[in-house]
Each structure stands twice: as C-alpha cells, then as structure tokens.
C-alpha cells in the first residue's frame, strides 16, 4: 500500500518535472516571438479557411487539399492558448486586435480553440470518407468557431 503511494508519488513528480520542462520551453519564446508566430499562424488559418470555404461553396472537394487545410487548423487550434500567453496583449504595448477578454475569460477562450480543433477533425474525417454533407457541416462548424471567437475576443 505504501509502495503504491511512493510509486504514484514518483510518477506525479516525474509528470510535474516534465510539465515544468514544457512550461520552460513555452516561456523560452519571447512575447514578441509569440505575437509574430500567432499573426503568421492566423494568416495561415485564413488561407485554410478560404480553401475550405471555396470547396464547400463549389461542392468540389479535393480531399488532399481539405485534409491539409484541416491539419493546419487543428495544429493552430492546439497552439492558440500558448500564442496568447499572458503579456502579449495591447496592455503590454503590442499593436494587436486581441481583446483583454482573452486573459479575463480564459476558459471561454480555450473552449473556442477546442471547437476549432473539433471542426477540423470533422472536416478531415469527412473529406477522407468522401462525405460531402459531413464536409459542409464541418466547414459550417469551422466558420462558426471563427465567428464566435472573433466576436468575443478580437476587435473588428
């Protein structure tokens, strides 16, 4: 019994140490780097959005292109909370459309990023299965996640 505790304690310690390493890796990026990274990332996300919406509108789905765009979206959705680390807002002197609500309502912000991730995986699955209706629904979900997140967290 006590052995189990020790083991669990060790695993806990190892996990904490690992987390600390990752946290340090994140902190190693300067706020400037994060702002540049997210602005470049958002542009890529825009390009992915354009590609997906063009396919959804025309009904001609190129599975390779769709999966590529969905992967970009999924990857960026996961990176997003880190892109908007504390100290990268207008109050830190950055020229940014990011609203202060990102840092006062972090739960809602993370949730929005997760919605994007979920939409991306639906798009990817549907595109690979040749499921047109699923693809269109995924793009609608993708658009909705962009709309609602920007509505709350970005200036016009």
């Amino acid at each position, binding site marked *: 019994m006590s052995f189990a505790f020790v083991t669990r304690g060790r695993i806990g310690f190892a996990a904490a140490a690992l987390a600390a390493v990752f946290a340090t890796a994140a902190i190693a990026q300067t706020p400037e780097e994060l702002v540049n990274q997210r*602005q470049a990332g*958002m*542009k890529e*996300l*825009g*390009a*992915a*959005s*354009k*590609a997906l*919406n063009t396919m959804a509108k025309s009904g001609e789905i190129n599975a390779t292109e769709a999966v590529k765009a969905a992967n970009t979206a999924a990857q960026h959705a996961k990176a997003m909370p880190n892109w908007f680390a504390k100290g990268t807002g207008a109050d830190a002197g950055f*020229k*940014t*459309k990011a*609203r202060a609500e990102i840092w006062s309502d972090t739960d809602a912000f993370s949730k929005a990023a997760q919605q994007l991730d979920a939409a991306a995986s639906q798009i990817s699955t549907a595109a690979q299965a040749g499921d047109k209706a699923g693809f269109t629904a995924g793009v609608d979900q993708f*658009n909705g996640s*962009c*709309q609602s*997140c*920007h*509505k709350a*967290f*970005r*200036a*016009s």
Partner: protein
Amino acid sequence: MVRTLSAAALLGLLGPASALAADPRSADPVERGEYVFQAGGCLECHTDIKGKGPELAGGRALESPFGTFYSPNITPHAETGIGRWTPEQFAAALRHGERPDGAAYYPAFPYTSYTGMTDADIADLWAYLKSRPAVEKANPEHDLPPPFAWRWTLRVWRGMFFEDARFAPDPTKPEAWNRGAYLANVLGHCAECHTPRNLMGARDDDMAYAGNAEGPGGEAVPNITPHPETGIGNWSEDDIVTLLEMGMTPDGDFVGGEMALVVENSTAKLTDEDRRAIAIYLKSLAPLENAVASD
C-alpha cells in the same frame, strides 16, 4: 420531466421557423417592422448582449472618447421604456434627435442617420417595437465628464452639425444603388462607425466611409471606400456580399468585435438583394486614402 422534454422538443421545432428572416414585403406591419429593426441594427445597441441583459431593455455601455454612454430601454414598458410614447414622439426621436420631453439626444444615438427614414419604415418599426415584451428596467445615467455631461449643449451641437433631411433617391441612379444608399446611409447607419469624427464628435463627411481609428470602445474601424491600398478597392461585389452574409473577408478571415455583432444581428438577416444593393453602393463611392490601424 416528460412535460419539460416535450416543451424542449416544441422549442426545438419552433426554433428554425422563428429563425427565418423577416420578409420586408410582408403584408404584416409587425413583420416589415422587424426587417427595418434588423436593417437598422437596433438590437446591438439597445440590448446589453455582453451582460446577457433582457432584449431591448438597454444598458449596453458604449465607450467613446467623450465618456461612456448607456443605451436606453426601448421596450413598451410604460415607466422605464417607450410605452407611453406617441408615434409622433417616436418619429421625432428618429428624425430630429428629440426626446419626448424636448431635450436632445447625444449623437451616440445615430438619429443623424435615421433622420433619412421613410414614413413607412418608421410606422412599421413602431409597430414591431410595440409588439415586443415590456421589460421593467430603469435607464442608467451616462458616465460623461463636463462639458459633455451638459445636455443643453446638444441643442447647439444639433444646430451646428445636424442636417434634418429625409432620404432623397437619386433618379439618375439605378434602383439597387438607391436602395443600397438608403440601407447604408440611413437604416444601417454604417457611416456612423466607418467615418472619422471631429473634436466635437461630429462625423467628418468629407471622409465618409474612410474608416475611424477611434471607433466604439477605442477600436479601429476600417476604411470601406474602394481605395485599393487603404480601403476595400480590391474586393468584388460578391466579396462584400459574403462579408455581410457571414462575416468572412476575401482572404478567409472573419470579422470580430462590433462588426461580428452587426453581421449576426443585422446584415446576415437582410435579403440577398439588399446585401447586394449595399455592395453596389459601397463600390460606387469615391476611393479615399486613409490608412486605419489594423492587425
């Protein structure tokens, strides 16, 4: 439990139907008024959306360089809303910026645009507002430092900057262009945010639609004249229609903040024909060079 479920199911059934856009050509003045209400963007300012306040009961904060304005309750509540107003008083508020007690409104209320409204639209909008549920909610005081807190100055302001005039269609222009001009300049009051203001808070109409670095909440509002570098000169008519319909720009980005609210509550609910009319009108504007902060 069963009853709750069936109520939820009923709501689910009613949901899509009630989400249908109002028909501007309906025989019912309330439905036509709902369309005017949406085109006029009344909801976004008269509802505290962020604070999840009751619909049209006001209290939404509008931050400006002059202080913070709070929108009033426009539900038909007799004491705290517009329940005791006459149709004439309602028309005077929209057209002349005049309160029923004779005092003037701050131009945070865009009567400077609504002044152009047609008699029919005002009557329909009145019918729609009277059909909404009354909500008891007293109006908060604006939070303005002097001299802006002195309401009598507004009469002077109105005399200096306000032109009391109905919309006059230009007979040399196509019908769609005129409809677009009416929607953009009057009902949609687009120029109120997309135009820079002078030190007295009046629109600089020589720079109409050329953007405003200091828009509501201190946020920049883009130049939407067809200037190729600083405006939207490289957007097609379809691009503008898509933005008004779903908030997506030609590069796949989505508008945020105030414009996202405008799209959701107003332009997404217009007919395709009306969105196109706005696009036709905006494309016809003179390109004005004015770089407004972005990114």
